[in-house]
């Protein structure tokens, strides 16, 4: 009887412990040859902490539970729990994503510079803004990036564009979004090193061993991102991702052929022992049938060749070759049609340092009417004159195509503008939006060290929405705007297709920085002159001097 009880207790204990601390780590590397001969590579490292919840913000005053992790990064877990963050997205990118030729990116956050957004529950003890500030500073220390400067002057709450990608816990208070961008932040090795330290296998084994900073930062576009989300009934998921666009034509001198060795200068020698799955997927080009992938892949889902790194013979060097292609023909690129539903251009016109005109031109590449949301989260360095907003569709004024959802005007030195609108794009046409902007004067101390360079303005973000008449979709399934993609582990990626415009550079009036001293001297001279004149008049002694008059 006793031993039976002991066994039952033991099994129960084992079950609870197995259920409570159920952590998984998956790694995935995806390659996608692009239409202009480049190669997009995306590393995804997914760690899931099953059976847990984000910290409830209402108990922030109480002692937190102990944190015990196996593959989940402790350094990140501490930050998440300290500030009770439900969902977090951090992107650090460099370069301009070319939507027309590269299509939609695998990770949607491709805006140049740093972008951080988080969903946090409200709490009576520590406000969302206070925690947002702490989170910024903690991540800034964690990733060696200047995220601390994403202050109130750059923080907005664009809930229309940045929807939660996971689920928000129903318990606790309402959840709030905080979003900030820092376009002048540049990603480099100092950000990659702390990023690698969050991985269970660092860059020493498995797919992560391919992360060679010398090659990753020598690409046309590169960016790292950290995504934390909570999936109801599952747990907390951390997705660390590195995305880059290589140019194999440059490496090989004219040919598109690539291999792990030629792209990363490394091959996979050994697999990460704690990875539940470890895959390399190579997209098979649809229209070209002369593409050849070596070695023989283990599996295929029709679109991708799948290599299982855990069971593959090592060293593993995946390669792709185009048979009978001696040199890549760039002419096909020039004639190609844009790969995204819409194409966006944004420019800042006007040469003066006090005013200008912001122009956005959006082309609908589809034969159907598309709606898209449009977000400008502009620091007060550029102030909009909303009444000058003009909308033209193929040269005809069409104010009805823009409906403004919200506009929170900026407060100089304090708050950015938040402008959200829904645009309706007629089929195969271009919508031109423009409005006057003024460029304010900055305080002497607000100028950065390289003041003459100008200020980088954050990208505008567009999210194509479902077409107005959804019946078209049944005839053209390829037009589907929302992605229903699985990420390989059965988790749906509910990421909408956000499109970021390139950043703008604005030239603000810059003072001569010896100015304060000149002003002091100038005003002192004036005051001394006035004072001297008045003082002299008041205290001068007038006397009569008799001049002996000569006859």
């Amino acid at each position, binding site marked *: 009887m006793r031993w039976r009880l002991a066994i039952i207790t033991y099994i129960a*204990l084992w079950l609870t*412990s197995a259920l409570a*601390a159920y952590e998984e780590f998956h790694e995935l590397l995806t390659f996608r040859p692009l239409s202009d001969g480049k190669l997009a590579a995306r590393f995804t490292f997914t760690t899931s902490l099953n059976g847990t919840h984000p910290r409830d913000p209402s108990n922030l005053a109480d002692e*937190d539970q*102990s*944190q*015990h*992790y*196996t*593959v989940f*990064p*402790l*350094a990140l877990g*501490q*930050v998440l729990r*300290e500030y009770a963050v439900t969902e977090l997205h951090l992107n650090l990118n460099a370069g301009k994503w070319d939507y027309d030729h590269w299509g939609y990116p695998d990770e949607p956050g491709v805006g140049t510079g740093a972008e951080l957004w988080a969903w946090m529950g409200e709490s009576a003890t520590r406000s969302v803004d206070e925690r947002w500030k702490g989170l910024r500073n*903690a991540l800034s*220390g*964690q990733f060696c990036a200047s995220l601390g400067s994403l202050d109130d002057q750059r923080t907005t709450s664009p809930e229309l564009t940045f929807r939660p990608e996971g689920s928000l816990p129903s318990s606790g208070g309402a959840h709030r979004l905080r979003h900030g961008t820092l376009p002048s932040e540049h990603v480099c090795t100092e950000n990659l090193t702390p990023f690698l*330290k*969050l991985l*269970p*296998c*660092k860059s*020493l*084994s*498995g797919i992560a061993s391919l992360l060679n900073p010398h090659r990753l930062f020598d690409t046309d576009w590169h960016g790292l991102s950290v995504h934390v989300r909570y999936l109801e009934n599952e747990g907390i998921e951390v997705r660390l991702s590195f995305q880059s666009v290589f140019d194999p034509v440059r490496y090989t001198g004219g040919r598109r052929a690539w291999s792990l060795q030629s792209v990363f200068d490394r091959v996979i020698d*050994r*697999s*990460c*022992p*704690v990875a539940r799955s470890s895959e390399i997927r190579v997209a098979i080009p649809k229209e070209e049938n002369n593409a050849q992938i070596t070695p023989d892949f283990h599996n295929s889902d029709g679109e991708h060749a799948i290599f299982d790194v855990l069971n593959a013979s090592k060293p593993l060097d995946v390669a792709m070759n185009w048979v009978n292609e001696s040199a890549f023909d760039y002419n096909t690129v020039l004639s190609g049609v844009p790969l995204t539903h819409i194409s966006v251009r944004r420019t800042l016109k006007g040469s003066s340092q006090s005013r200008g005109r912001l122009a956005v031109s959006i082309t609908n590449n589809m034969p159907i009417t598309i709606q898209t949301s449009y977000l400008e989260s502009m620091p007060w360095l550029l102030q909009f004159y909303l009444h000058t907003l003009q909308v033209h569709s193929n040269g005809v004024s069409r104010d009805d195509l823009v409906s403004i959802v919200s506009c929170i005007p900026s407060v100089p030195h304090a708050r950015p503008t938040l402008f959200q609108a829904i645009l309706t794009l007629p089929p195969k046409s271009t919508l031109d939006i423009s409005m006057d902007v003024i460029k304010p004067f900055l305080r002497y101390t607000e100028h950065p060290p390289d003041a003459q360079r100008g200020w980088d303005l954050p990208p505008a973000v567009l999210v194509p929405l479902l077409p107005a008449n959804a019946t078209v979709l049944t005839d053209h399934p390829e037009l589907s705007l929302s992605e229903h993609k699985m990420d390989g582990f059965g988790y749906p990626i509910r990421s909408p297709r956000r499109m970021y415009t390139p950043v703008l550079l604005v030239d603000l009036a810059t003072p001569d920085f010896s100015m304060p001293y000149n002003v*002091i*001297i100038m005003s*002192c*001279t004036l*005051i*001394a002159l006035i*004072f*001297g004149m008045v*003082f*002299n008049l*008041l*205290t001068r*002694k*007038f*006397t*009569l001097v008799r001049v002996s008059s000569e006859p």
Partner: protein
Amino acid sequence: MSEKQETETIPPKDPSKLTFESAFTRRRILASYWLVILLAVPLWWSYTSISRLSLPESRIQALAGKQWHSDIRVHVKSNVKAHPVDAVVSDVARLLKEDLKESEGVSIQFVTDSKSSADTYEVTLNTNVERASLRGRKLTIGMLPDDDAESIESSRLRLASVLRHLLVPPPPAERSNSPQRVVKYSPRYRVSFTLLNEDSASGKAAYTWDMQQAFGAHLGPTIDRLSPLHNFTVESQVQFHAPLAFSPKAVEHEGKIVHGLTHEDLTVFVNSAEWTLSSAVSNDPVLHFVAFIPSKEHDPLYILDDEGHPTTSNAFILPQWGGIIILNQHQPHLNMFALRPIFQTFKTQLLTLLGVADLPPAGIQLDNNEPFSQWQFDALMRRRTMENVEESRDTLLSIVKLVNQIQNMPVGKDVKGDVLGALNALEHAFEVGSSSPMKAFKYSAKAFILSSKAFFNPGNLGMLYFPAEHKYAVYTPLFASIAAPLVAAVVREFLAWKKARREGLAERPKTD
């Protein structure tokens, strides 16, 4: 022509006859200018001076001379004929007095009434020499029953030595020649446990561990016991790749090649650049406990003695940092059974790092299953109290010294508040010092926290960036150009007044 005639006929008005041209008016104008300047000086002073609130210097100085001491009351009961209580007490008191230094801040009193207060220690002497036992604040110790002088002497010496080790353990620095191992006092520590695989891909690794259960079983009671002194945040992680920054030496041992760590290697063992052990979210000091699993290449890994031979010990303490244990035998999953010796070692290391003194070597046993005795806890609390008192007193004195030394250093409201708070707590600690050790400790901890907060207040650095030279550079263009006519006017008026007076004096005899 007619104009000329007019000017000749009407004599020009003498300006000195105008009301506003009188010397008196002019001097009054001049005086009012100076008056405005003089009145403006205090205003200017208050706007440009750095706010330096006065600190209670005399009270702080008064504390400087005070010697901290706490009273320990011991009640002795004897069941041994050869050792009557009075004789034992007088002998032991004399021996302890010789041994204890003034700087240890403790005075031991022997009382006859055990019910005087709850924290009186009770010592019972009996004849069971083999075994001494501790239960709560009670010590039962055996004395030799023989009544020859030699055995009486040795028994009492032993008792005195045991009491000294239990009540006032000598600081660890004196016991071993290692540097100060005990961490500085902090109200909260992060205790971080790491299962560190040097290279898990090499095939020799432990991937998971039953850390939470092992912690609860082996360290939970210790942590609970220490909770009146410190709060603890416990966390754990597993790392799968933690390369060493050096290559361990290969040595031959019992016919096999093993790898060894010399004493120099131990000091640089922690590869902080590659191991992510540090915490990012708080400033609380971290105590690291690392179970290190060497890679296949460095297996087995031993600690070498001075002659280069492997030792049996596989764990070591890095002073004020934490403890490390090297695991050469293990399974991929470390279960409770495998973790038992590891967490026993971690427990010893934790106690050493936190300053819990060892029991005296005289074969004393703990009666119940406590992690350590009440006597050890009390001794630690007394030591922490004294350290905190001394530390916060030194900090307060340094603040006063610094403020007096650097004239440009601002002293804000918060700094003054913290200094006052620390001072009050410190004075309270001195007041209750001998009556209630727990209260004294709480006050001393408060004084320690507040005084370091005041010392490291960022506001203390505020205005150091505006040296006097800069001020003068900004002021001279205005002040010099305004002061010149003002001073010149005063001089001119003074000369005119002297001249007028001399003329007046010269004229007077003429009129007489």
